[in-house]
């Protein structure tokens, strides 16, 4: 756990309140630190400054000094240095703090500026909030309420712009709602590196559009929807599905790859409607790939494993009989949570079984999708499930062919997809724990339907060895059981000792059994994750390349 270097601090006065902020902070962020909201549209902490919305206008002043002598000029009445207020309002986003700087965020001039800007933004805005999906999380709504004048003086005709434009496969654009903040343009230029968006036409008729013949189709296109302060850019998938104020937010981790993108799962009454990124400056800033946002669809996928109708005790009895037959191999998963991997390892120890984990790699995009598509490979190492970077199941296949393995326990892994042939599968008895049907579940003697990542709680360790937790967003499928519970039952059934399958109990065991996790509990893991020491595995070569906020260790040694 490395402490960041202490930044140089600058003392500024915001509405008279003194605060020391890191050098280079802008006024909006400085005001945020004293709990003052400076409204803004175009400013985004992770994008370059455009300064074009003019909503964050503030009054700025510097202590007065005599020009000739550089002596401070004192105010006789208060005994303090006089402040030289700049007569014109300044933008908060583009103004970085300077020592002694004074800022007024609530003065009459600032209020009047905000009212003016709000009025201007609203005159050509369609005001179709009842239809607009952004309603409820719309900056224009919020700031019209907070800073607007409350009535309209505009009786002319509003501008007409294209509506319901397909900007890309996942993004729909309503230009009339656009406030031309240019966040999306800057995002595609600076983060997605896919410079396809831009404005055409002039003045109030300016229109956001895509470069002719191109589409906004990069894998980060939906981030433009997230950062759009109004409802101009909307997700085609989420469009007109549900008002956001009905949705419950649950913190989660994207299981797409080992980046461990922090997410928020939005659900209502057990149905997930969308997934959005959650800000974590150490992992994903405020972004996430589009491909991770559709993963919620697996919760209600057609091939979800349904309970067979056999009593759970029968399943357990059959599984126990198979496991007690000996010659067992356990295939754990890099997609299982840390807790599940721990219990898998415990089961394997109890059975004296060999353990395997299926490696899963793909091309990394250098941003938020890494080459290792297992979200929790590091967890398998930390829990001792495996000691090497996982590869394929060739070794297991050889053992099956040699007849050394009679029974295979698979925790959510499709063995045939991982390289075992149908003949090999036919030779062994399979106990399968999984959420979706596949060739392995079809071949398995015992199938325990389990939960998807959105229905259960747990934690992953990402490529940075950052321990991050996710919580269950929706109730599990009826009849499906949490993996932890099934694994714990199996451990007990084959003669092991159970400390309980709930998170608190499992973590008590984890903290006791794994040195790196000593003194930790599930509740103690911060929302932004906890960086673990990775010295033990520094000699291993992981498949990940460079991505946002992650430099692979190997790259450092070669460089």
């Amino acid at each position, binding site marked *: 756990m490395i402490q960041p270097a202490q930044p140089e601090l600058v003392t500024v006065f915001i509405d008279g309140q003194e605060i020391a902020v890191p050098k280079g902070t802008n006024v909006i962020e400085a005001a945020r630190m004293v709990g003052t909201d400076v409204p803004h549209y175009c400013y985004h902490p992770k994008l370059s400054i455009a300064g074009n919305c003019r909503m964050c206008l503030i009054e700025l002043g510097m202590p007065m000094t005599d020009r000739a002598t550089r002596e401070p000029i004192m105010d006789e009445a208060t005994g303090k240095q006089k402040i030289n207020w700049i007569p014109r*309002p300044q933008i908060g986003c583009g103004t970085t703090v300077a020592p002694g700087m004074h800022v007024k965020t609530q003065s009459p001039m600032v209020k009047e500026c905000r009212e003016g800007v709000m009025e201007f933004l609203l005159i050509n805005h369609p005001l179709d909030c009842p239809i607009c999906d952004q309603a409820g999380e719309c900056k224009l709504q919020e700031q019209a309420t907070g800073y607007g004048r409350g009535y309209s003086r505009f009786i002319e005709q509003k501008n007409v712009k294209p509506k319901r434009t397909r900007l890309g496969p996942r993004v729909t654009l309503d230009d009339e709602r656009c406030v031309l903040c240019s966040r999306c343009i800057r995002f595609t230029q600076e983060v997605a590196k896919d410079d396809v968006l831009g404005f055409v036409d002039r*003045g*109030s008729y300016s229109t956001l559009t895509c470069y002719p013949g191109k589409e906004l189709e990069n894998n980060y296109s939906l981030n433009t929807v997230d950062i759009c302060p109004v409802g101009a850019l909307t997700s085609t998938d989420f469009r007109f599905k549900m008002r956001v104020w009905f949705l419950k937010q649950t913190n989660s981790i994207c299981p797409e790859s080992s980046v461990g993108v922090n997410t928020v799962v939005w659900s209502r009454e057990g149905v997930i409607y969308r997934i959005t990124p959650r800000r974590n400056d150490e992992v994903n800033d405020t972004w996430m790939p589009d491909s991770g946002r559709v993963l919620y669809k697996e919760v209600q996928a057609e091939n979800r494993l349904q309970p067979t109708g056999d009593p759970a005790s029968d399943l357990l009895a059959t599984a126990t009989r198979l496991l007690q037959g000996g010659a067992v191999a356990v295939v754990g998963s890099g997609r299982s949570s840390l807790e599940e991997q721990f219990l898998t390892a415990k089961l394997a120890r109890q059975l004296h079984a060999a353990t395997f984990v299926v490696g899963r790699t793909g091309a990394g995009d250098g941003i938020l999708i890494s080459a290792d598509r297992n979200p929790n490979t590091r967890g398998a190492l930390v829990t001792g499930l495996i000691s090497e970077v996982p590869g394929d199941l060739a070794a297991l296949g050889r053992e099956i062919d040699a007849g050394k393995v009679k029974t295979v326990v698979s925790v959510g892994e499709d063995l045939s997809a991982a390289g075992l042939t149908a003949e090999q599968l036919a030779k062994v008895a399979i106990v399968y724990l999984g959420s979706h049907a596949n060739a392995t579940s079809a071949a398995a003697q015992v199938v325990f339907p389990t939960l998807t990542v959105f229905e259960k709680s747990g934690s992953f360790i990402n490529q940075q060895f950052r321990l991050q937790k996710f919580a269950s967003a929706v109730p599990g499928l009826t009849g499906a059981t949490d993996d932890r519970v099934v694994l714990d039952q199996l451990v007990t059934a084959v003669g092991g000792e159970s400390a309980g399958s709930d998170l608190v109990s499992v973590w008590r065991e984890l903290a006791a059994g794994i040195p790196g996790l000593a003194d930790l509990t599930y509740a103690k893991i911060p929302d932004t994750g906890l960086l673990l020491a990775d010295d033990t595995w520094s000699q291993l070569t992981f498949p990940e390349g460079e991505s946002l906020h992650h430099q692979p260790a190997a790259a450092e040694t070669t460089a």
Partner: protein
Amino acid sequence: MPAPAERRIIFKHIDEEGYSNDLACYQKHGGYQVLQKALTARPEDIREDVKKSGLRGRGGAGFSCGLKWSFVDRKSGKPIYLVVNADESEPGTFKDRYIIHQDPHQLIEGTMISCFANDVKQAYIYIRGEFPEGARILERAIQEARDAGFVGRNICGTDYSCDIFVHRGAGAYICGEETGLIESLEGKRANPRIKPPYFPAVLGLYQCPTIVNNVETLCHVKHILDMGPDEYLKIGTPNNTGTRIFCVSGHVKKPGYYEYACGEITMGQLLYDVCGGPREGREFKAVIPGGSSAKILRFGETFTLKNQDGSERVLKVEDIPLDFDTLAACGTMGGSGGVIVMDDSVNMVEALANINAFYAHESCGQCTPCREGSLWMKKISSRMVHGEAREEDGELIKSVADQIAGRTICAFGEACSWPTQSFVLKFGDEFKAYNEDKKTKSADRLELV
């Protein structure tokens, strides 16, 4: 008091019989001698001379040229660029066009001197897209000069090299704004940049230190070096040195360009004596002294100004000496020297509608107040002249303008709101009384946008 005689420096030869815009003619009239002289001097000295001369920019803001040059970041190690702002689009202004068309070598010489003074290796002339002829003339003149060794490699045999390129704008008023111009020059939308941090002197063209000067300003540089800064200081009044070209348009008998020493001529002398006064049977009603974005002056209003010794003097519009400071003190500006005259045949609401239509069309659309406000002002004034005026519209349009000025990235905010503010302030009665039977045929012509 009769008007003083014209003092032509820039336009010295322009109207002369047989004066052409080729190099031979220019050299015959002493062209490029100042450049040759300047190349022997130290650049710092030239900069010092310009600073000493008190030359103020002729593009509109009237900022000191010497000071501007002094801001340039010379320690960054990055190349320094000089950009000639020939994007003359302010309604009522047509001086640069004449310089370019009639005397392009004067501009080239001034530019080269300035380049040398600032150690510039590359200069651009950003010319307005609607000046194709000017661009052709410039191209040809530069080629002539390049062939003659005044531009390009090893100028005049020295080891100083600097080339000039002509860049034609794509036709937008906002390209005249210096950072907008730089963006446009870089090949982007001409969205002005935010200052801070993008001061051209530090982070200009291609993020390098950049000087952007008006055509006329650069021409003056040549004359400063020609006559020496002390001599130049004697022209005009203190702090308002040199001559100014006034582009008089509108309801006078003799519109056109006139060059006078700064502050030597009053508005009355210019309009009555020089331009021949109002048309038959008409009276002057109002005048815009510095291009359409300057605040309007109403004939009959008076201004109380403070003298340097503390005493006060009262000026009528006719008495205002046409220099930078007095006009600023009277609440308007010298701007680009485009004097627009209106007589009593003009309806001010319609005039404003026309101006607003222009600015609504020209706003770049980057920052909110100007983008939305300029079109709204246009919509209001257009509605008014279409017979749907309301009594409160004057106040409304002014308060919209108030919400723009001072809150935008660039000076366009002021440019589009000052006319409205001053029109409503000074002709508020006309705005109140404007009603539907005033709907005129000119309303149809106002469909500019």
